């Protein structure tokens, strides 16, 4: 499971694929206002990003994964940008 509703938070874990979009959609609809925790997310499909841009839930803990965080964090924080992606770490 990549989308886990855990108490007062929706956790996105590991590699979140396009098929997880339906689960996230349902979770966001069922628990409006619930925060989303991205800490353990390693990749996030566009379909899920799109849902986060529309639902604009409160965000908790940015992804540990630097390659994901460099664009996902500023993208969600600015509601779509424009933004400057963080540096690419090798």
């Amino acid at each position, binding site marked *: 499971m990549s989308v886990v509703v855990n108490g007062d938070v929706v956790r996105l874990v590991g590699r979140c694929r396009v098929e997880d979009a339906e689960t996230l*959609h349902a979770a966001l609809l069922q628990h409006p206002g619930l925060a989303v925790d991205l800490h353990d997310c390693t*990749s996030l499909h*566009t379909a899920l*990003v*799109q*849902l986060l841009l529309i639902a604009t839930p409160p965000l908790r803990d940015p992804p540990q994964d630097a390659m994901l965080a460099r664009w996902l964090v500023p993208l969600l924080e600015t509601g*779509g*940008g424009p933004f400057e992606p963080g540096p690419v770490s090798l």
Partner: protein
Amino acid sequence: MDELLDQFLIEGRELVADAQSHLAALTADPSDAAHIDGAFRAFHTLKGSVGLFDMAPAGRVLHAGEDLLEQARAGRHPLDGGRVAMLIETIDQIDRWIEAIESIGRLPDDAGGIAATLVAQLDRTAAPAEPAAVDEPEPTAWLQDLVDSTAAIIGADERPMLAFRYRPDAQCFFRGDDPLRIATAVPDLVALRVMPRHHWPALDEIAPFECHLVVEGISAADADAVRSAFLTVGDEVAIVPVPRRVQEAGATNGNARSLRIDEHRIDALADDVGELTLVGNALAHLSADAGRLDGELGARLRQVQAAFERNLASLHRNVTAVRMVSLAPTLRRLPRMVREIAAELGRAVSFTIEGERSEVDKAIADMLFEPLLHLVRNAIDHGVEAPEIRRAAGKPEQGAVTLSVRRDGENVMLDLSDDGAGMDADRIRAAAIDRGVIDAATADGVDNVALFQLVFAPGFSTARSVTSVSGRGVGMDAVKTAVEAVGGTVSIASERGRGTTTTLRLPLSAITTRLLLVRAGGSCYAVPFNAILETAIIATDAIVPIGAGQAFVLRDRTVPVIDLAAVLGAQAGAADRHRLLVVDTRGDRVALIVDGFGAPIEAMVRPPAKLLAGFPGIGGTTVLGDGQVLLVLDPAKLVA
């Protein structure tokens, strides 16, 4: 008025003028990339501005014009003379609409129809849309928008850059595409943004597997690297270079260092400086008084007063400098007027402005347009001949009207020349005699140079037929009055068959004097502020006769009182209270009885005309904004 609208009226006009100057340059060379870029930017920004107001027809017209410029910019459909003329017509129409918004607060009723005609004409001259652009109604308006919105991010980065716009198909998730994964893998990504293709659907309406977004970005990588990042979705991506100039424009917009200040605030500042001049006058007298009682205290006060005067002078210079504005915005309104006047009169005219960079006091820039417009009308109506007459005279059918602007010391000179018929000395002589401007005996002795100046005399007009253009009851005398009101001069030179040149000489800074209007004996007069010590209202019985005159006591000092109306030969008014103007007459105080005080004004004071020169106490004359001429009193001479 609405602040946003005020701002638009200023900026909208600037953008129109900007577009007009680029288009004027394109008339000469329709392939000039810098001017195509400049005109495109002006159209694009104007389109955004008019969108804030109820000006939808203007938005449609600008959009069509922008498309045409965009095609030229992309090299798909170069401009030619006809298309540039269309664009000029478009921007002239926008100018008229901005005028309408200012004067009547809305677009005229025919705006929709005019817009439809213009859009149809512009579209007809545009290139047919490319197949790839079918789904993309604004091919690179997005580019401008992207560059504008990322200006702060791009900043001073001078690397060549590419912009991309990736519009994934709504069903792309089913094909396994992950658009953000692709876009974020573009090398050397400088900026990125994600937008809804139209608008974001509500969360409970969205189908989670449908793609609704568009990704745009800017990369500093080379074209091959960017293209290969989008290899699998190439047909959904547009990649274009970020134009250098646009990049620069974006960067400067982000770092603008100038302020736009309401002119009334500057005027208020100038008023305060005027008030301080009064304080300075009072201080000078105070230090003289103090010096009589205590020499050392007087000397110290004089030092303080001198320092005050120096700083005040510097403040005055700085406030004056703030009021200096470029003549360009005023002058750039003329080309459109020339086109309209020439079209109405059936003349072919090319209009050139040379050297419009001079800066003058705002008061001068503001007054200049009307007189110049009148002179331009005259040049086209009475100067430039009809095309068939010009052809017969061996001249090019198109008349040339040139406005050249140059600085000459503390003056700015404007020469308006035409290559038309020139002035007919005999006809002017006859008309001047006929209209009583000059008598026959004098007229014979007058040379042509002096004779031509008679056209500025009130009531002189030799137009054979009254046209809607020149025959507006505003003669050349109005031009002269307006120019002289700011301390300028106007002269005219002409050569039969070769053309006419009218020259305006205007001071760079309006050298104005602060005047207080006073009423006495039923008339209005002006008194320079620097002669006034104070004003007072006292009971009539406080004035006591002393010898042959009268006086009153002001703070333990006896001040002689003179009735201004009586001195000026008018009927003195009777009242139980007197308004007094205490003035300085070479070190002595004298109080003048006046009927009332008017507003303080800033105005040019001209030396007294010959008629008044023999009359003591008149320092000069001044022309009010409404054309009324006032006598400016010189109190020192008045009571001497």
